Structure formats: C-alpha cells, structure tokens
C-alpha cells in the first residue's frame, strides 16, 4: 500500500525482494546501495546473523526523483530466505506494492526456488493479496555460474504467467538495476491505473 502525502508532496512505495535462502536478495540491495548517488539513498540497514544471513530484513530507502511535483521514494526490503523464518517473511510482506522474486539459477536450487515461489503465493494470499494482481518481476540470478538450469526451463517452472523477467549476476551488478527499474515502473503504472483508491 503506497503512501501519498499531499502535505510533504511525497509518495512512498514498498518493494520486497523474495526468494530462497542464499539466492542473492541482500546482494541485490547491496549493489543498488553501492551504485546509487549518495543524495538519492538513505542508510542501508541489515538485520543479519553473525554469519551474515538475513535474520529479519534488509532495508534500503531510495529517492528516485520527482513526478509531477511529487518526490517518489521507494523502500526496498528483503525477506530472510531460510525456510524456518516464515513468520518473519509474512510480516515483511505487509503493505507491499511490488515484489521481485530472485531465483537462484543453479540446478541444485531448483526445488528451493519452486518452494519459495509457492511460499510467496501462500503468504500473500494470507494477507489478502493476489500475486497475479501485484507488480511482480522475476530475476534469474547467478547466471555466471556453470551449473545453471536452462533459462527456458526456469521460465516454464517459475514464470508460467509470463511476467517481466531478467537474467542477472547480482555480484557484478548485471541485471540488478534493470530489475529494480522494471518493478518501480510497474508500481507507478499501477498507481496511475488505481488512482488513490
């Protein structure tokens, strides 16, 4: 649920990066953080364990600029990917405006991707959302690794509805901004369509 503030002429939207453990959600945010001009970003917060696994969420506020006199701000969140953190994942999805699913393209993670996608749908439904109606982007990450599932197969399994999708290597930054732009664009188009509702 976006927040339109006529008093400060700002609009705030929430984007959640979802996906199985170690797929690169936090890496996506870190790269966005590194490559964004200082005046356009806030502090990145990571609530992680000592071994740098996400415990609750990562958070990165971004200011993209103005549209029609309104400052547009996007709040990027990641969820903890590990299966047993499901309760935390549900909390972070609250009020989401757009979702990026980061898939781990490695063959051995195929099942984990499918499981995480099902988990995303379940958790959204629990809060009264339908994935099909949300701005939604899929990113096939880790394309630089040798043991990737063929793209066609990933698409068939993870993207039956043909939402916009991108290949990526989050560590080098390939595909990261393309993904972010695509989801931001879908969210803004959704706002245009829906008005203030």
């Amino acid at each position, binding site marked *: 649920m976006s*927040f339109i503030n006529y*008093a400060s002429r700002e609009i705030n939207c929430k984007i959640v990066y979802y996906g199985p453990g170690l797929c690169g959600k936090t890496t996506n945010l870190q790269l966005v953080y590194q490559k964004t001009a200082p005046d356009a970003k806030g502090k990145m917060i990571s609530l992680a364990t000592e071994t740098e696994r996400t415990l609750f969420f990562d958070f990165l506020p971004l200011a993209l600029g103005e549209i029609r006199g309104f400052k547009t701000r996007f*709040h990027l969140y990641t969820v903890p990917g590990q299966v047993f953190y499901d309760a935390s994942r549900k909390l972070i999805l609250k009020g989401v405006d757009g979702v990026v699913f980061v898939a781990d393209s490695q063959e051995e993670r195929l099942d984990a991707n499918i499981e995480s996608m099902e988990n995303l749908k379940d958790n959204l439904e629990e809060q009264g959302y339908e994935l099909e109606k949300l701005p939604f982007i899929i990113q096939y990450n880790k394309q630089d690794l040798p043991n990737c599932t063929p793209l066609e197969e990933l698409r068939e399994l993870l993207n039956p509805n043909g939402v916009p999708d991108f290949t990526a290597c989050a560590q080098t930054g390939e595909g990261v901004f393309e993904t972010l732009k695509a989801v931001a664009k879908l969210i803004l188009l959704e706002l*245009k369509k829906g008005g203030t509702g």
Partner: protein
Amino acid sequence: MLDPQHNSFVMYDEEFQRISAVIEKLLRESNSKVIFLVDKNGQLIASCGETEHLDTTSLASLTAGNIAATGGLAKLIGEKEFSILFHEGEKDNIHISIIAQRVILVVIFDHRSSLGLVRLRVKKASDELAKIFEDLAVKAAEMEKTGNADSPFAEITDDDIDNLFS
C-alpha cells in the same frame, strides 16, 4: 478497513497540520526529545523535536519491524496485540504505542521526563490522533466515492516514468 491491494494511504494538508499540532503539544507536555508517527508499513508520517541528527527513515522502518514482530509474538500467545512497547537505554528511552490499530506513535525521551509522564500524555494524545486518523479515513473514502481522488499519478505518462531512471 481497506482492501490492502488497491488502496493507498493518503495524507492531506489539513490533517497533517492537525497531527503536527497534536504531536508538538505532546512533545512539550511530556518533556520529550523526539516524537514521530509511523504507518504500520514503516512509512514516516510526521515527526517533531530534535530530529536533525536522527535517521528518521531508518527509525520508521525499524519501528514498524519491531511492532510487526511484537504483534506476531502477541498472536502466538493469543493476544490481539501489545499496544505499548518500552525500551530503556542508559540515556535515552523509547516509548512506542499503537494508535487505532493502525499508526505507531514513538516518543524518545531522557532524564528530563519519566515513563509515567510520557504514558500519561501519550494516552491523551492518542485519543486525539485516533480521531484525526478516523476523519482522514472518512475523507479518503469520500474522495474516492465522489471521484475526487485526484491522484497526482492519474495523468503521468510513460515518459515521466522513464525520466526518473535517466
């Protein structure tokens, strides 16, 4: 209250002024340092006091995460919510409360105030704030019904959006 998927939370000038007046009064009467209001989704709604050296965006997001986690705990033990949280530090303390099940009120105070005073003043301010948010919800619903929602985004073009990323 609202369909989560197709609604925005809207703040208008008039209500923003009313809210600011209430939290500024609360700041004075409770002798506190900083006060801010956060939407349960982590969006900062308003703030006052010594905010210059504070990262209010991060504070807002972490507060919402905190409330969400505490709310999850409450459900697990069969409570609806824990409506007040209190964090005690060496110098500064944080008092967090939920208003009208929707908005989070955060008061940061030091030795110049006390938990008792903050609780007392927060209680009074909460009622006033709840009323304003109720009015706001009614107003937003009316705007929608009469088609006067007047979204600033209703007329944006693809070019506008592309320009953001150039």
